[in-house]
């Protein structure tokens, strides 16, 4: 456990000390601030427009974070040989990789909390209804991007920095689109749509975490919806994490 903690702590420091971390945090503040002023210009209901645009800004920032930092820390392991410093110490390979995943998750959580607080402050200013549903929304958003990040940590071990980024972007777009197709297929059960239905299960369904409607209007979320999505998220994250650990364990450095 001590080894995992040390590597996780190191990973958080590594990410937080990157200039890109500071720039992306400032840029997300700028985006949220921009959305705040843009909302003032619309004749529509201000709190709702702010929330809709604000959550897009937050998702954009989180998406950039995972697509950049997941391949980066694997690149640092191999190109800057940081991995040698740790693996010649009393630590197993699985502990090292698990520490990397947990450190990445913690850094993402810090980032999410910082920008979510900024958004909540603006929501209070525009008079939005700040309710517990928002916490659920931010939580699911975190799981969604963490899952994508762990996928990045897995594939970056075998591909270069940019190839990994491109694949992560592709998987995200494909995942969201296939999920929409799945929803259409689910509504209409003819044979061709059944193919789509089964196909959709092979692609991570990121939009299953989208609970914007519940969060926006503060609607009560059915308990089966909440736990269904939570279990799906944790399961997907766990499978990808095990994949990343096993893949690293087998890798020749």
């Amino acid at each position, binding site marked *: 456990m*001590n080894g995992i903690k040390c590597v996780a702590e190191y990973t958080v420091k590594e990410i937080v000390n990157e200039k890109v971390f500071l720039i992306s945090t400032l840029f997300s503040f700028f985006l949220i601030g921009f959305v705040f002023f843009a909302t003032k210009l619309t004749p529509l209901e201000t709190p709702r427009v702010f929330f809709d645009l604000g959550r897009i800004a937050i998702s954009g920032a989180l998406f950039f974070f995972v697509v950049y930092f997941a391949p980066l820390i694997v690149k640092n392991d191999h190109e800057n*040989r940081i991995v040698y410093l740790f693996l010649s110490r009393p630590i197993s390979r699985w502990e090292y990789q698990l520490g990397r995943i947990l450190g990445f998750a913690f850094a993402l959580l810090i980032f999410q909390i910082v920008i979510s607080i900024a958004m909540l402050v603006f929501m209070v200013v525009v008079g939005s209804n700040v309710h517990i549903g928002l916490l659920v929304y931010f939580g699911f958003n975190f799981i969604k991007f963490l899952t994508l990040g762990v996928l990045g940590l897995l594939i970056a071990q075998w591909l270069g920095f940019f190839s990994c980024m491109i694949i992560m972007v592709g998987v995200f777009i494909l995942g969201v689109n296939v999920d929409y197709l799945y929803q259409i297929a689910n509504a209409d059960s003819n044979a061709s749509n059944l193919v789509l239905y089964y196909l959709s299960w092979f692609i991570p369904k990121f939009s299953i975490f989208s609970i914007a409607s519940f969060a926006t209007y503060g609607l009560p979320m059915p308990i089966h919806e909440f736990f269904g999505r939570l279990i799906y998220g944790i399961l997907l994250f766990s499978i990808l994490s095990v994949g990343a650990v096993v893949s690293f364990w087998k890798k020749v450095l």
Partner: protein
Amino acid sequence: MKNLLTVKNLDFVFPGGDGNQGHHALKNFSMELKKENVTLLVGPNGAGKSTLIFLLTGINLSHSHSIDFDGQSTPDKKWKSRLGFMPEKSSLPLFMTPDSLLRLLFQLVIPAMNRRIVSRKIDELLSLVGLSEVSNKRMSGFSKGMLQRVSIAQMLINDPEFIVMDEPMSGLDESGQQLLMSLVKKFKEDKKTVLISTHKIDEFKEYADQVIEIKAGELAFLGDAQKYFFNRNQSVSV
């Protein structure tokens, strides 16, 4: 004298490269590393020296159980806690300070150590390598020689019994080289087992007990250092 490490018929292949068969870095390689000896690992670039070092330090794993790590078949935590490793090229996180890096490594290697003792040990190590004045400066501004000194300090945090250095002279200035030589001398006096991979074999001639020479992944020489240097001088004079 007992062996610390015994390698028998070790084959190691890097996947990819050379078509689908991969790159055969070590071929049927056997060697013994005697305890309390200073051993030089020599050979041309690409001969397999670093591959061997990565296997002996547990960075890479050989699943063929061809290596005996002082009675164990795998380089487990107990083995690694006796090891000090200085890699060839700097593998240091440049955003950190030498102090924060050593603190992190102390926490990893000796978690139960009292904070005050850790601070004192860090001061001693940084003073030993001549970096006390820059202990709280980020390593991103350090020269190659200064980074090598940090690398020496991190190698010594657990007072290792077995010390592995991969091209330790690389990037060191005159005073750094003198520091390294004095350390090797001290390791020898303290009866530590030392393995040094180097191209500058004459620099370590005075302290070497044993030489292992690798050529194209195969053992070319294993034996007494004096014999190796004698043979080399003979072949040069011929």
